């Protein structure tokens, strides 16, 4: 097993990387209670990107976990969740902007706090996306890994604190070359009043036919067709 790349993304940090076809990105919540906001793009044609509505309705689910696939707007699989020890990843919460973070955690400027300053998911993702010539218009709904939000019969949300145990791990298999942009910041609905973002460990490795991929292809007939579309609509 060759690890091409390993990185500990500190809480509050942002990064981006290309997951080549056949590679797996593993994300590990080493301390527990982490949240990672994730956006995915076709690495070669970045107008093709993660489409959460297509992802959710195609699999009749509002939560994501092992056996689920992340669809692009072009009906293809950008990533398959081949391993997941967490069990529930959130599609509702999105990211906070600077004003929302200041409202929630109070003032937290670089001038006083240096690199412990309060970051926000929107700016972090925008900065990282800007490095790939992507802009505000390219940031629709994001996936929040390691976070659980449930919906009651009236539609109201409940955030489940400490959902992700220390060592929780999720693996994303890329069946095509994919640009992943991510940031490790508290989930927007997390009621914890202290700004305390948790780190996440990233590693990238080759795995052309990983255990768990069959489940992703067969858990729903839609998923198999979305895999077939990778060849049909190749760009």
């Amino acid at each position, binding site marked *: 097993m060759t690890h091409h790349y390993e990185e500990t993304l500190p809480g509050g940090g942002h990064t981006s990387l290309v997951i080549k076809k056949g590679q797996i990105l593993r994300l590990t919540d080493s301390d527990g209670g982490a949240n990672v906001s994730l956006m995915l793009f076709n690495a070669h044609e970045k107008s093709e990107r993660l489409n959460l509505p*297509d992802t959710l*309705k195609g699999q009749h689910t509002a939560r994501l976990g092992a056996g689920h696939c992340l669809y692009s707007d072009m009906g293809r699989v950008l990533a398959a969740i081949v391993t997941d020890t967490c069990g529930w990843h959130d599609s509702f919460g999105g990211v906070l902007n600077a004003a929302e973070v200041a409202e929630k955690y109070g003032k937290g400027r670089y001038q006083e706090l240096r690199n412990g300053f309060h970051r926000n998911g929107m700016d972090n993702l925008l900065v990282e996306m800007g490095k790939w010539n992507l802009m505000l218009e390219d940031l629709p709904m994001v996936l929040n890994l390691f976070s659980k939000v449930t919906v009651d019969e009236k539609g109201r949300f409940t955030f489940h604190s400490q959902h992700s145990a220390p060592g929780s791990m999720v693996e994303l298999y890329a069946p095509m070359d994919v640009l992943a942009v991510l940031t490790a910041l508290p989930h927007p609905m997390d009621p914890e009043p202290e700004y305390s973002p948790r780190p996440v460990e990233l590693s990238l490795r080759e795995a052309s036919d990983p255990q768990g991929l069959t489940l992703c292809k067969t858990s729903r007939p839609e998923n198999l067709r979305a895999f077939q579309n990778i060849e049909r609509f190749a760009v």
Partner: protein
Amino acid sequence: MTLTTSDKQPADAVYRHIIPAGEPFLFEVKKGQTLRLHDLEGNQAVDTLFYRAASPRERYDAQRTLRRQNNAYLTSGSVLYSNLGNPLLTIVADTCGRHDTLGGACAQESNTVRYSADTRYMHSCRDNFLCACLHDGRLNKRDITANINFFMNVPVTPEGGLTFEDGISAAGKYVELRAECDVIVLISNCPQLNNPCNGWNPTAAEVLVWN
């Protein structure tokens, strides 16, 4: 579900337009004006996106809207927030009671995933959106983000399942929104023939605007 009726009279509208089944429509509503979307024959999904007219890169943000109102569905009182955190419109009347925020718009490509490869050449909402955007010139593919499906019912279960149900809307149901700034409204009057969201019979919808 709480239903809220409006006392606005169609005869007083400054603008009325009927969107035939399966067609797009792009228009503007000014700050303070009220927009009514009217389900003429019932169970028609009206796929809709909103942009700030002065700067269309500011647009409806599904996740922020849901989070700020702490609810997965839209109805009277819901404020539609932008990706910059500003209110774009507020729902002020609603005789349907629930509108979908998660299902998105049908597309040729997603139809091949949801149904079968041979549905690829059927008409779709995203084709409508693209056609209207590219003719207008201010919007393009990247602007087609997660939309609202007015009159559609897509409940989330406590276990995180997503179900598609119909029967909430009916002929004559409407939703009204007050514009909090000048907005571009982009609509695809959904042509979907592969699922029962509109009873396999796409029908016309009407838009009305009052000062």
